[in-house]
């Protein structure tokens, strides 16, 4: 068996008196696409943000490529975050920079690459997400789907080992979801390792290597898409899946 790229062990997070995460553990192998599903407030976003320490977990440990991440050490933390790309629901592009500059800035300011070299790479990444002709536009001039693709290009330019995607299409109009899904599908086919929270179970079940059902800060059940959507053992999983199938249409 190959060692996991990313190993997450027993992550817990408390806000005040509320336990938002109650010991979540997860092994991710190269090329895996793990899909997090679960009701609102289950802790999906919190788990993803704990994985790159945007939220500091109260307990738990994380290993990347078998190296434990010591996030208290700033240098280690910044190096680790470069290797873990994050895609947000509301894109979070840098509003004062063009698409090209958005993709380039991390390479220049964080990795210390030269502007020209980073610019070339940025063009490549934008081409890969189908936005080369829009690279001089500012976020305010892009559609939601285009913004999300820029943010994916921005993350990819850092050469991440793993990508975390937090409901990447939830803020999009239905007709724009497809273009972002196509990019993510493409990433998966090229072997990118990903953990994604989503309610788009049609898309999820066609791509996922494993589905994780979360509720109330715990990963209640995990398994192949077929197992979770059609033969779930836990009654809560069954209930959630039938509800979400109704809401988000047929799976395919």
């Amino acid at each position, binding site marked *: 068996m190959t060692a996991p790229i990313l190993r997450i062990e027993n992550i817990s997070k408390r806000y005040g008196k509320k336990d938002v995460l109650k010991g979540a553990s997860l092994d991710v192998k190269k090329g895996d696409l793990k899909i997090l599903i679960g009701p609102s407030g289950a802790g999906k976003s919190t788990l993803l*943000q704990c994985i*790159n320490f*945007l939220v500091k977990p109260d307990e738990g440990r994380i290993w990347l490529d078998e190296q434990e991440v010591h996030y208290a050490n*700033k240098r280690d933390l*910044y*190096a680790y*975050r*470069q290797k*873990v*790309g*994050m895609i*947000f629901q*509301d*894109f*979070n*592009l*840098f*509003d*004062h920079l063009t698409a090209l500059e958005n993709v380039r*800035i*991390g390479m220049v*300011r*964080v*990795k210390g690459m030269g502007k020209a070299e980073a610019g070339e790479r940025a063009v490549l990444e934008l081409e890969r997400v189908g936005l080369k002709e829009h690279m001089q*536009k*500012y*976020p*305010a*001039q892009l559609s939601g789907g285009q913004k999300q693709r820029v*943010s994916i290009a*921005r*993350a990819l330019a*850092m050469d991440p080992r793993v990508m975390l995607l937090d409901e990447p299409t939830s803020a999009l109009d239905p007709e724009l979801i497809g273009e972002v899904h196509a990019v993510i599908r493409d990433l998966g086919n090229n072997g990118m390792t990903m953990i994604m929270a989503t309610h788009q179970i049609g898309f999820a079940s066609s791509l996922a290597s494993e589905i994780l059902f979360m509720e109330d800060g715990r990963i209640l059940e995990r398994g192949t898409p077929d197992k979770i959507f059609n033969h779930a053992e836990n009654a809560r999983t069954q209930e959630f899946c039938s509800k979400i199938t109704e809401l988000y249409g047929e799976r395919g």
Partner: protein
Amino acid sequence: MTEGWLYIQTEVYPALLKGFWVSLQLIAPSALLGLAIGIMVGVLRIYGNRPVMAAANTFVAIFRGIPLVVQLFIWYFGLPHIGIYLSPFFASVLGFSLCSGAYHSEYIRGALLSIKRGQMLAAQSLGFSKIRMIFSIILPQAIRRALPGCGNEIIYLIKYSSLAYMITCIELTGQGKILASNSFKYTEVFLMIGACYLVMTSVASIILGRVEDRLRIPGFEHRRT
């Protein structure tokens, strides 16, 4: 008529020119220093740790809360009591920069708060350190948002630079005062001085407008006032 003209040519014009020049020398460094102080203090008020934040807030409370003339008197007449002697010019620039910086920091602070938290998460997720994030992501946006307010403050500075004559730094207003009390032509002299300030503030607002245009980016437009 000719006598009046002669008076203007030989007395008023050279004196006002000299004063005008001193005013510019007071205003330019104070504007730049004030802006720099404002940006620094504004950043510390938002991103500093608790004691730094408290210190920055105290700075603003003091320099915004005490009348500028009083501050100038303290710098010029007060400091010698503890053995520090500042020239009138230097004391004025110091007083203007600190006061102006306190006001700028308010505009900067408001603009910093208006930048969405998501962009900071995005920067951090790319591996940005906090300082890099502030300088390459947050400030370039915040400064654009703060520009109208900061421009306003610079216009104010041009006008309150006239207070320098109170601590014997003879700039435009000071020259006018001397001229007028020698000739008793208060109206004429101060009308001319008023016109000089109007020219300075008008030119400044044209320059500030140009800067705003240069920095304009889709998504950061704001209405002209």
